[in-house]
């Protein structure tokens, strides 16, 4: 009886609090809890990973971060998640807020709706000046219930090669 209860609790996850995931440099990012997978280019190195808490999110949290090896050492990718209880919040406005050391991001392209693996997403491209240089921010957002998942790439604004590799990786997103 006791053994059965332990097994059930383990299977349902009821016996566990937060558990730090392992950092993995695998060719596919897979998060079974959120139901996301996408292809990871060879020159991306995972620097952080998280399991989101269940229930309400108090703030925007990241799911995973990658450092991108490129001539521009500041290139990075993050997958972020926040809760939008209205279900219709302005995605462009959200991503224009201060982030990644840049006080204001300016929308340059989009928002543009696109269907990726059967799921409707919203593309944005923004730029901003930080530490004396122009940075680009490629963003792809998906709404799932009242959560908004944002795939965000940061790079030197002139580095089109890195931007394209981020774009391709974001287009490989599959929702399970």
């Amino acid at each position, binding site marked *: 009886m006791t053994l059965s209860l332990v097994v059930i609790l383990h299977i349902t996850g009821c016996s566990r609090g937060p558990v*730090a995931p392992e950092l993995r440099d695998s060719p596919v990012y897979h998060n079974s809890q959120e139901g996301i997978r996408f292809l990871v280019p060879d020159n991306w190195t995972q620097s952080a990973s998280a399991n989101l808490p269940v229930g309400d999110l108090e703030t925007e949290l990241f799911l995973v971060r990658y450092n991108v090896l490129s001539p521009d050492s500041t290139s990075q990718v993050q997958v972020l998640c926040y809760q939008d209880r209205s279900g219709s919040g302005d995605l462009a406005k959200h991503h224009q807020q201060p982030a990644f050391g840049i006080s204001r991001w300016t929308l340059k392209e989009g928002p543009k709706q696109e269907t990726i693996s059967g799921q409707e997403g919203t593309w944005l491209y923004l730029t901003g000046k930080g530490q004396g240089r122009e940075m680009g921010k490629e963003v792809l957002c998906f709404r799932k219930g009242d959560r908004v998942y944002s795939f965000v790439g940061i790079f030197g604004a002139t580095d089109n090669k890195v931007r394209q590799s981020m774009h391709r990786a974001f287009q490989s997103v599959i929702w399970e």
Partner: protein
Amino acid sequence: MRPAATTSYIASFGSFGLLNTVPDISNGPFYRNSSTRMDDFRDGTTHTFIVGERPAMFAKAPWAGVMQSGTVRTTPGAPVYVSILQLAPTMSLSRVNKIGLNSPYSEPYDFFSPHTGVVYFLFADGSVRGLSSDIDIQLLRSLSTISTGDASHE
């Protein structure tokens, strides 16, 4: 490469500065090339902790840390939501930021304890005291600094 013994205790960098990238500047007792003297503890040695807990079950780092050419990672399975890779200074230094003790969002540069509800610290007067995980964050920041004129009154 040889295996190295891990540490469960870490020096305090204070509450100000960029530990990962600029480990030379802080308001705590330890930083790169620090030479803090007892006279420097203007907040009082009883009101300043210098070493705190950070066990290997949370983040594995060698007991003799280095300031460059290395990283520290959250130990897989640690009781936090986030795994993060941080730079070499985090091997030997921790700091107090905006989150409290034993937060489920703690990162390797945070103090952390396997004990429930308490984190143990060595203070500059030689005493070891446990601080509640619910301690006010401003008080915790005050206890981590050496001379900001914010001596706490217990």
